[in-house]
Structure formats: C-alpha cells, structure tokens
C-alpha cells in the first residue's frame, strides 16, 4: 500500500517538476500582464426608449377610425395606436421640428405640419413619412394646424400662411398673401370655410376657399380654434377664455361672457354638444345653442394644457403637455408610469 502510494507520489513529483519549469514563469508573467495592462470593461445594459417619453408634449391628435389614433408633438414625435390608445408605437418622422398639427383621411393616409414649414405625408399608415415642399418664403413659416376638407387639405400658420393641397398633401400652394399675422385654425363645412387667427382676425369663404372675406369680431384677442356643426352654427375660442358664437354662417359673432380666465386652445362639435379644452386642465361644454357653458376639468386634479382633442368611439384623445385618453370620465395618461 505504502509502496504503491510512493510510486504514485513519484509520478506526481514528475508532474510537479515539469510544472516547476514552466508554470511559475507563465503565472508570474500572467499576473504582471494582468496587473499592468488588463483593464476590466463594464458591461452596460441597453436602454430602449419608450414610445412616449416623459419630456414629450403633443400638439395634435387625429383619429381616422375607432381604433387608429395618431398624435404629433415636439421634436418630430409621431406616435400611432391601433388599439384605441391602449398602446402606442413610435413612427420615424424624419424631422426634428416640433409638429403642431396632424390630420388623417383614413387609417393609411395622413399628414402632419409644424415648425420651419415642415409638412410630412404618409400613405402607408405611417411606416414611412415623406417631406412635402411648400411654397418658398423668407419667413419662418411655422405651421400650426392642418385640416381636411373633402379631398383638399388646408394648412395654416405664422405670417399669414394659408396653404392648400389638392393631391393629398404632395404639393401645396399659397391661397392668401403673406402678412404679419398668424392664422391659428381653419375649418370647412362643404364649400363654406372659416379662418381664425391673431388679434381676433376671422375670415370666411363660401366657394371652397377660392375667395375670402374678413369678418369683424367683438374684440382683438387671438382666436385659437374654430368649429362648425353645420353651415350656420359655429364656435370660435381663444386666449383668456374668449368664446365667440355665430348663428348665421359666420357673418356676425357674439361674445359669450367669459367664464374662465384661462386660455382655450381647441373646440369641437361632438355629435350633440360643444367641447372646448385649454390651459390648466380646463374643459368646457355646451348644448347645441352654445349659450350656456359648463366649465369643468378633464379630470379631477389634472392641470395639463391641451391644444388638441379628437374622438373615436367612446374615447376622447387629448394632446397637450401629455397624451391622454379620456374614457367615460376616466383619464389615463399615456406613457407615464411614474409621477
């Protein structure tokens, strides 16, 4: 037993002798090398930005059908939902400009406008957005809103920009001359159309936008948005709670006594009532006569500003300092898990 072990020990000794000639040199060299030259590299986890980021603000929404919703906002952000606002997917807009307006014919065809005269168009549900050129100008050409009137598209903006496209947004022509006044919104009912802007400016057309005439308004507060429920009855809203009502197709406007001092940025006709949204979470509603307005909030405790509102099915989509869905009085803000 002992002898066998000795023999084994002898073999082991041989191995050790072999090791002793090479291994120590290798080890010492290895340690020196590791000590002097090897620097550990940190493994860094990858961060995938969410479709809606905390910093995003949205200026406009478009809901072509009950499932599909588009929203556009700062830094060229376009997001689209195909499940009525449950989940959102970011789309590559190929622009860094703030997008102020968006409009859609259907779930495939849409266009968006924004700062620096940016107009982008898609015909494939937003998989690709392509830039459209607008008539050249030396002015900044900030475009605020884009609206659809039948087959035509209208975009309005700074320096009197009123642009029209008849080929689904590919080519644009200037309808009114440039002037130092911003147009904030435009709307059509058939061939009748209305245009609102800075300093209480208001124009109307009866021939689909070929000729426009100015209409006097009761004050000089900037008007931000206009909507009509038929060719006769319309509402325009503006800064500092300004609210104008017409019953004669926009020929004359009456001011509704201000019920809020906050700005109102958007108004829409919502099947059987009027709906306006504005600063600090305020939302106002009225019956068809637009005389008695109810002031409330989009949701209790909500203080976000809203510049755009659209409805699809039972849900309202609100663009503003965040992107929110209002479903049966319950407000859920998209993409904000905390705060």
């Amino acid at each position, binding site marked *: 037993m002992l002898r066998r072990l000795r023999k084994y*020990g002898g073999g*082991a*000794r041989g*191995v*050790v*002798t072999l*090791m*002793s000639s090479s*291994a*120590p*040199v290798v*080890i*010492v060299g290895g*340690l*020196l090398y*590791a*000590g*002097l030259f*090897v*620097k*550990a590299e*940190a493994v*860094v*986890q990858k*961060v*995938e*930005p*969410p479709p809606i*980021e*905390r*910093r*995003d*603000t949205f*200026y406009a929404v478009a809901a072509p059908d009950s499932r599909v919703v588009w929203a556009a906002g*700062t*830094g060229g952000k376009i997001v689209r939902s195909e499940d009525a606002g449950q989940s959102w997917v970011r789309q590559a807009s190929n622009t*860094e400009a*703030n997008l*102020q307006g968006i409009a859609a014919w259907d779930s495939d065809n849409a266009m968006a406008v924004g*700062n620096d005269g940016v107009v982008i168009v898609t015909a494939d549900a937003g998989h690709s957005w392509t830039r459209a050129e607008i008539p050249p100008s030396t002015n*900044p050409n900030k475009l*605020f809103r884009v609206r659809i009137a039948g087959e035509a598209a209208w975009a309005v903006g700074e320096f009197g920009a009123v642009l029209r496209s008849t080929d689904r947004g590919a080519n644009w022509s200037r309808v009114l001359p440039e002037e130092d006044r911003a147009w904030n919104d435009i709307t059509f009912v058939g061939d009748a159309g209305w245009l609102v802007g800075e300093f209480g400016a208001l124009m109307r057309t009866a021939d689909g936008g070929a000729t426009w005439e100015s209409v006097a308004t009761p004050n000089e507060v*900037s008007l*931000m948005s206009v909507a009509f429920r038929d060719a006769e009855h319309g509402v325009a809203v503006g*800064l500092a709670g300004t609210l104008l009502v017409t019953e004669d197709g926009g020929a004359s406007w009456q001011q509704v006594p201000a019920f809020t001092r906050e*700005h109102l*940025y958007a108004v829409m006709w919502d099947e059987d009532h009027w709906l306006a949204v504005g*600063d*600090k979470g305020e939302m106002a509603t009225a019956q068809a006569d637009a005389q008695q307005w109810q002031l409330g909030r989009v949701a209790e405790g909500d*203080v976000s*500003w809203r*510049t755009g509102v659209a409805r699809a099915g039972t849900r309202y989509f609100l663009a*503003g*300092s965040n992107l929110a869905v209002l479903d049966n009085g319950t407000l859920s803000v998209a993409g904000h898990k*905390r*705060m």
Partner: protein
Amino acid sequence: MKNTTFGKVDQAFAFLIRFRALVVAAVALVTLAMGYQASQIEVKTIFSDLLPRDHPYVAVNQRFKQTFGGSNMVSIMIEARDGDIFNPAVLGKVQKLTVDLQQVEGVDTYQIISLASKKIKEVRASTEGVESRPLMWPELPRSAAEFAALKASVLNNPLVYGPYVSADLKATLVTVDFNDGNMDYTRAFNELMALVEEASGDGVEVRIVGEPVLYGWVNHYLHETLMIFFAAVAALVVLLCLITRTWHGTILPLLAGMVSAIWALGAARLMGFHLDPLVVVVAFLITAQAISNSVQLIARFDDEIGHGIASAAAAARASARNLFKPSMLAIVADAGCVLVVALTPIPLLQKISFIGTVWVLTILVSALILTPVMLSWFGARQRFIHPIDINPVLMRILGLCSAIVTTRWRYAVLGAAGVAFVVSGLYAFNLKVGDANPGSPILWPDSRYNRDAAEINRQFQGSDRMFVVVAGNQPGALREPEVLSSMTRFQKYMEAQPEVGGSISLADILPQVKRVLREGNPMYQELGQTSDENGELMYMFVSGSDPGDMDRYADADAKNGAVTLFFRDHQGETIRTAIARVRDYVEQHPIKDAQYLLAGGLVGVLAAVNEVILAGQIEAIALALLVLVVCCTVTYRSTVAGVFFMIPVLLSNTITFSYMAWAGIGMNINTLPVVALGIGLGVDYTFYIVDGIRENLHRSRNVEHAIVNALMGPGKGVLITAMTLITSVVLWHFSSLRLQADMGVLIALWLFISAFSALFIMPAMVYVFRPEFIVGSKRRPIVQADLTMAG
C-alpha cells in the same frame, strides 16, 4: 533554511533576550511617544479624500461645483401628512428652514434652494412687460387666494413642479450644498439634525439625505463602533484565556495587538493622516494579524516547554528561531499586498494603504521581537489559571485533520476544494463594482437614512445628482439654437433610462420664457430661432434678479452651462449605464460650438470612483498575488513555492467574492481595502503549517509523520487563532453600520477558509504532490538538522 542562517537568527534573539530589560524599555518608550501621537489623531471623513486624483470627471466636478452644485448636496423633504403643502403651517416651516440653513456649519449659502428662496422664480407677463420674480420670497402668501395663486404658479412651472414640489403636492424639497474644505462635519450634522427635529411635528414630516448627512450618521455611530471594537478585543482576551489557560497566552497576544495599533496610529499621525471611521474594521483585521503571529510564537513556546526545555529563555529563543521564517514571510507578504492598494489613485485608499503597511510592519516588533522577549520572563513550569480544559477538543479536531490527510479522504477533500474553487470562481463574476443596492450600503436598509432616501426618491425625481457640463468654445455659445436643441435632445435621450428621474437645464427654461412672451400659448413653448432671440429670452429670465441666480444653469457670459440629471439611486449599474449613454450620445451627435464634459455632482464623482476601482481591482488583485508569489519564491528559493501558496489565496478569494456577490455587497471604496488585505491574510496559516512540515522533515524523512506533527504543533496555533478571531469578529454583526457588519462576516469567512485550507487542504496537497521545496528530492535532499541546533 540553512543552518548558518538559523544560527544567526538564534544569536540575534539570544542577544535580545540577554538585554531584555533594555529591549522592553525601548519598546515601551517608543510606544509611549507613539501613544501620545496616536491620541492626537483625528477621526473624521474628508470628502475630497474620496475623489480619485487626476480623473477627468473629478476635475470637471472641482472646476464647476461652485456653480452647478457639487457632490455634497443635502436634500431635505418637508412632507404634509394631510392635505397639500399650500398652507401657512407647512410653508412657514419651509421658510424658517431656508433661513436657518444659512447658519449651519460649512453651508454654501449661495446654494440653498427651496420654494422660499429667492432663486426659485417664475416669469410672468404683466401690463409693464415681462418680469421674473421669486415665487415665495421674501414673504409667505397671506390669504387663501394668494395660496391658491402660488399653487397655480407651481403647477405651471416645470422647474418647480417635479424638481421641488412633488407630483401629488404633498411634499416640497429644500436642497443645500456644502463646501468640502476644512469644516467640522460632526457639527454640521448636529446642526442639520437639530433643524430637522425643530421642523418636524404639527402634521409635518421632515426627511434628510445627502453625503454629508450619511457621513454624519457614520460619525454618529463612531462611539458605538469603538465600543464594538473594544468589546471584540475583550472577547479575544476572554477566549485566549479560556483556550490557552495561561497568563502569557492571554496577555502577550493582546500586548502585540496594542503595541502595533499604537505605533501604527502614531505613525499615521506623524505622516499627517487622519483616521476614517469606516476603516476601523481594517484596523481590527490587522490587529488580528498581530495576534495571530503572537499566538503562534506562544504555542511554539509551550510546545518547547512541553518537550522539556529547561529554561524559559531557551524555549523563547527556540520558538523565535523556528518561527522566524514563516512569520517574516507572512508579515512581508501581507505588507506588500496592502501596499499594492496605494496604486489605486484615490487618496483615502492610499492613506489606508500606507497606514496599513506600516501597521503590518510593526508586527515585526510587537509580535516577532516583543513576544519572545516577554516570554522569556514567564516561568518554564505550566501553571493553569482556570480548570476548564478544552485542549481535548482542539486535539480531536487536529486528529481529524491528520486522519483525513493520512487516509484516502484526502482525495475527497482535494476534490471538494477543486469543485468549490471552480464553482465559486464562476459565481464570483457576479460581483458588482459600485453600490449593489439602492440607498446607502453603509447603513442597514431599515436605518433612518435609507428610509428617508427611499421616501424622497419615491416623491421626487431623485435625490442623487449628476451634472454634465456643456462647455462652449466661446462666450455666447449657449445662446446658439444648435447647442440648446442638442441639450434638449440629450436630456430626452438620458431620461429614457428608468433610473433617471428627470433632468434640468437652460434649454428647459427658455421655452417657458418664450411661452410667457407669446401670451402663454404653449405652441410657442420652444427655444428661440436665433442666438439673439435666445439671448433676449435669457435676459428676460434674469432681469430683476440677483447676478448669479442663473448660475445653476449657465454662467454669466453664456459660455458654460450644465445639464443636471436626477437619479433615483446610485447603484454601480445605474451609474455605468448613464455614463455609457452620455458617451454614446456625445459620440453620435457632435455639435460645432460646444462639447459635453463628464461629469460632476455625487453621481459624477461616484462614476469616477467606480471606474477607478473597476480598472484598479484587477491590478490590485493581480499585483497582490504577484507580491505573494515573489515573496514565497524568494523565501523558499523555489518557483513552485510561489505557485503552491497561491492555492489557498485563490480559494479564499473566490469564495469571499462569491459571498459578496451573493449577499449583495458591492466592490466599492469602503470594501476594497478589506478585500486587498484579505489576499495576504488568506495564506498566513498555511505558511506556519508548511514550515512546520519542513522543519519536521529536517528530523525525519517520513512525510506522513512530518505532516501529522506539523498539524499537532503549528496547527494548534492556527486553530486557536482562527477560533478566537472568528468568534470575536461575530460581535461586529451587531453594528448599526451595515458596512461593518458585512465586513465582519467577510473577515470571519476569510479566517475560516484560511484556517480550513491550512489544516485540511494544504497538508493533503503536500501529501499528494510532494512539492520539492518542502519534501526535497533525490537531487536536493532535505538537510538533516544538526542535532545540537534542533535542541
């Protein structure tokens, strides 16, 4: 060792013992002088010591911290229990706190920011134009209407709502920065806590976090730390007394530990160093080394007496002579391993390294010389001081070791050790650099500080800050639209990381101003189109305010600005990801007029520390191992020796690292010194056993007998040291500082694995592989001892 060297050592100790009175007097004198110095040493934390030298992030932090807020920021959260903060009771406290903070020691009075400070302001349009005015300074709102107005202003101001007022309006933040010069942190902490106490109550909860507060807590527990230290030492004494049953076995190890400590602390004071309270555990570790050396000498002394040496002096001489080589080797290797830490360019670690090296070297005197000299005074006759005898237990354990080595069980032990090495080696890769958990790893998760930190990070965007400097190429660069829009996109990019709670910069302010200028229309909430327009916007914002109020965002000539990022935690992973993302962004989006400079604030500084430690840990471990290999190779004149002694070290390292990874202890500035010391520590016991085997082989050629004898002799010393130290280290577990409890467990683990490998694994290795430097070979047989020398 050759007999001639043996002889020289023997003569030297004979000389020392002959003049033992003189030797002891000299040591006592030096100890007295050093004791005076040691009593003068300051125990404190100096923040600048934590910052890596010459690191670019630290340079940026030092250059810009005055304007953009450094790493010593304290956040105080004032939270209303019911309702929101907009009532006189809560806001009154905010105002009082804001004013009182100016009186606190070390506060940078320009960096006190709260709702009630002059620096939080809003821009509003009025009939006279645009004005910028403080939100709530100098007076509180007086009526319900004014409170409502203030609330509305807060809600509309993203610079306030979010960063300084919580989303649910129930809490507000006061932030204050501290200078990191020569200030009294304990006083600052006490004054801060007094203010916090004063503000608490009446339905208001006050919570406070920040590095100065954290280290304030550490200092707060200093008394307790020292108590535990002394309790651990007392436990050591009791255990030594219990096991050795002799006065000399009890007192001399303690004496060795004390003399070493006094000399080391005195030397530290002479070198102009202070003592960081968190380093006390390291001090204990080195004290353990001193005690271990002394116990070995005493065990050998007792053995010699047991073998019938006539005089105590002769026994002491024999003990010192025979243990000289392994003791020297242990001390020099340890000192080398500790010295390697100094290569990490962080002043705190360098100081620890220098103190530690000196401390380890003092063991040469306190144990190697003093113990044998003192032993010579004790009688040769064994007198037991109490009747409890646990020697049979020790002998049974050592018998078990011998039984394993001499039977086939040794293969089982080696196999198990191999498996443990591979498994723990793989698992050890999970070890994290930086803090491994949210909150501070220095304190327990349920400590007040960590609970406060969790609450503040729940309510706000994050209490840990990092600023990235946007350095312009010429004045006015920060007015360039390209630079500002790049900053906005940068912030957006960074905020995609979930741990980044938010960010703030000049590029957030200007759109607010522009919106106000445009009648409050959010469609104009954007940066100016031209540098002139941005210049106007900046002018609007600062108009009517103090010069310097803009400093947090950009300097006066708009050349340098900062993006401040708020982090919810400062885990190593979070910081690494953030830094890598900053680099990615800067690489992919270069701008013409400015560049991004990393990085200041607490998170920026921690990033630097983590990078240095990450880069340095391989260096430190590899070079420490190299020191060990070289020491062993030289001592035994055999390259195999170097490799052989790496085995227990590698094993104890992989297992300890695995434990750290498993327990969530990160490799950071506080744990690195312990880890580096542990490398040297892992091998000491093996030196004694292997030397014992060699020594026995000088007397007889039977390897098996030599191993068994070595286990019964030096093995007993190893067992005594390990048992006493492990038991007393357990006391650290009761520390209020989690770091010390963790380090206590770590040290205990280290000692246990070292002892285990020395008693079980290494003898089996010797038996199986018979390395030439221990058992000799036909070519170089072991020199048989000269019988006169062997005594």
